């Protein structure tokens, strides 16, 4: 298919996909490769990478950094993916309704969106997590709540254009239901920007989670990369590996997601891919 062709021709996107696949693989096999809790103290604290059987060193309690990164991959991807899904669910439904219905409904939804975009989102996320107590659920919820407005805007804009496209009018004239028109006619055509946005949302969710952890608002029971940097940051000159490796993991994952997102954007946008 032309999409696959266009996508695979983009070297960055393929690289991103490979990195992402590796990260996913790491997440899937973490408990096989490191068959113990990443929280377990395995040996001497502050072991350098390569010392005492610690591939990437150990942390201040003698926990294995490599195990943390492997298990953390699962958590980071999980938080990224789930919060993106929730954000998309909110954003797409609101955007679709606003864009398709127009009028008062549109106005109302856009006002709400505006309010959410006016309050600085990071501060809002911090407050939400603090209020609901830091946990997987509250972090996912907070990230989703601050990340849906852009989706709504994009989807609404797409729907506004597509609503007046002739194939949608044709569907109206054929007597199809509103639901069918939204879901079967318009949505599939609005999918490209949504998919692109989704890949970027996962990336920013991973970053946002790490920032929350940095401020001490992570789920204390989950080994996530953000948490690892947060805990390694203060001993960075004593044990650089504690924050460098999870930092690299975040960087690579976010980079991969962005590369994939860019690749998708190019491949899904015929106008752009033709120009290249």
């Amino acid at each position, binding site marked *: 298919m032309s999409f696959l062709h266009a996508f695979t021709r983009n070297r960055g996107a393929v690289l991103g996909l490979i990195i992402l696949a590796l990260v996913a693989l790491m997440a899937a096999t973490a408990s096989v490769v490191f068959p113990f809790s990443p929280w377990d103290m395995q040996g001497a604290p502050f072991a350098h990478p390569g010392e005492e059987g610690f591939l990437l060193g150990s942390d201040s309690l003698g926990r294995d950094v490599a195990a943390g990164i492997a298990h953390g991959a699962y958590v980071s991807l999980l938080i990224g993916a789930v919060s993106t899904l929730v954000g998309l669910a909110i954003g797409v439904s609101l955007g679709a309704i606003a864009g398709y219905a127009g009028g008062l409904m549109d106005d109302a939804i856009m006002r709400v969106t505006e309010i959410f975009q006016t309050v600085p989102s990071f501060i809002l996320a911090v407050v939400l997590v603090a209020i609901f107590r830091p946990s997987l659920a509250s972090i996912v919820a907070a990230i989703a709540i601050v990340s849906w407005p852009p989706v709504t805007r994009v989807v609404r804009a797409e729907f506004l254009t597509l609503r007046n*496209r*002739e194939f949608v*009018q*044709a569907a109206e*004239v*054929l*007597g*199809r239901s509103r639901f069918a028109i939204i879901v079967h006619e318009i949505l599939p055509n609005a999918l490209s920007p949504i998919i692109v946005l989704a890949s970027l949302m996962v990336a920013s969710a991973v970053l946002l989670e790490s920032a929350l952890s940095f401020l001490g608002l992570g789920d204390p029971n989950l080994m996530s990369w953000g948490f690892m940097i947060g805990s390694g940051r203060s001993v960075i000159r004593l044990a650089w590996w504690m924050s460098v490796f999870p930092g690299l993991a975040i960087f690579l994952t976010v980079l991969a997601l962005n590369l994939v997102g860019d690749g998708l954007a190019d491949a899904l946008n015929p106008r752009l891919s033709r120009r290249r």
Partner: protein
Amino acid sequence: MSLLRIENLTVALPQGAERPHAISDVSMSLDAGEILCIVGESGSGKSVSVAATMGLLPAALKITQGRILLDGTDILGFSPAQMRDMRGKRIGMIFQEPMTALNPLMRVRDQVAEIMQVHGAPVGNRVLELLEAVGLPNPATLARAYPHQLSGGQRQRVMIAIALALEPAILIADEPTTALDVTTQMQVLHLIRNIQQRRGMGVLFITHDFGVVAEIADRVVVMQQGAVVESGHVTEILQNPQHPYTLKLIAAVPHTTPPPRPAPPGHPITGRPILELVGVTKTYRGRGAVPAVHQASLRIGRGETLGLVGESGSGKSTLARAIVRLVIPESGAIRFHDTDLRPLSRGQWKPFRKRIQMVFQDPAASLNPRRRVGDIIAEGPVAHGEPRHKARARAIELLRLVQLDPGAADRFPHEFSGGQRQRIGIARALAMEPELLIADEPVSALDVSVQAQILELLEDLRVRLNLTMLFITHDLRVAAQICDRVAVMRRGIIVEQGPTAEVFANPTHDYTRALLDSIPGRRKNQT
């Protein structure tokens, strides 16, 4: 010596394109004081030829052979600086889309002045002079305006003013009137002609429309698939075309004389109307108080084709959409048989969806690109409760009916040409077995030769399926071909309606007359 001479020019397409060359071995020459028309359909290579002349070829296209001589010098050997100096100063150019060709963020004045500034010419009062010279009213006001505040015709005049600013010897016009309304088109054509004659310029004029050719050309070059197939003096070509392609193009131009039409058998036009509009008015929110459609009334009898003719912004599309509840008019009645459709809710409307169907203008936009053709055609009946397999089976029949391969059902719209897509659109509408078919500019996005085929198909279907049709078009020539009666719309008001032949022969309204006079090539055709 010719002013401009293109010799054996070949431009290669990038690897993987459908043919190796955009143009191959093209030669032509332009003399001072003449208008040379390059005619061809999309993909014929006519635009590439002039882009090469201006040095504006896209980076992907490379000249592999040939020369372009300007006053005897091969411009292909020019340095970028020489090219830049040549552009604007020795060759001026205007483009097809006046809406996008001007920088939306700069005032008209600045855009006109810019060409003089960059070529080191004194600006002085020239801007206003030029604007006046291209027939723009209130040059002083217009100079301060931004492009979006101008109409399409005005913008094209501004483009012409820019192109003429440095009094170049050559003007290249790439389909300059295609995007304009007929009356505007005629004015712009006259303007170009006048200026050309006054200044003795050579004009290279690109068009796909033999009507325009007849209107303006001294000599003609016909291009097909990147090659010149025929060239010669305009009267020669028009009256005695040699190449079959030329012949086909000329034949495809609809004639302005309505052919005699038999009255629909057994259904007198004067009988009880299927559809009757009474005083329909629609005003869009936030566009001032001017209604898009004002007090429109018309009747369509069974088996009849009514043409609704008007220029862009006349409200004809709004009216068509009002009939199928894509827009909801604030007053008036839309009676279909005995039911006033206007006050009906979405749900109440549903039964009528089967009986009134629509074919849309843009075949690229009217088919959902994410769905297979078979599903597109079947979706209407399915939405009305027909089992999916039955609807699919009938979709295949319908594809045959519109003369497409039944295998098309499993493919996606983008795999088809414009004409084929329009056939799919028609099949979709017919799947509902409607009584009334509304065709909204169904051929205006198509090449002329394809246009003729689609019109033929529609006419054929109308007769075979006993359809009643409301046919919306901006092109009087098309209306003349297919309509029993025409209604002419202007600024939301129906100014005249009557049997096609009558309206064409004896227009009663000034506007209708202006429209008729603006049909390119009409006078020359008739002579």
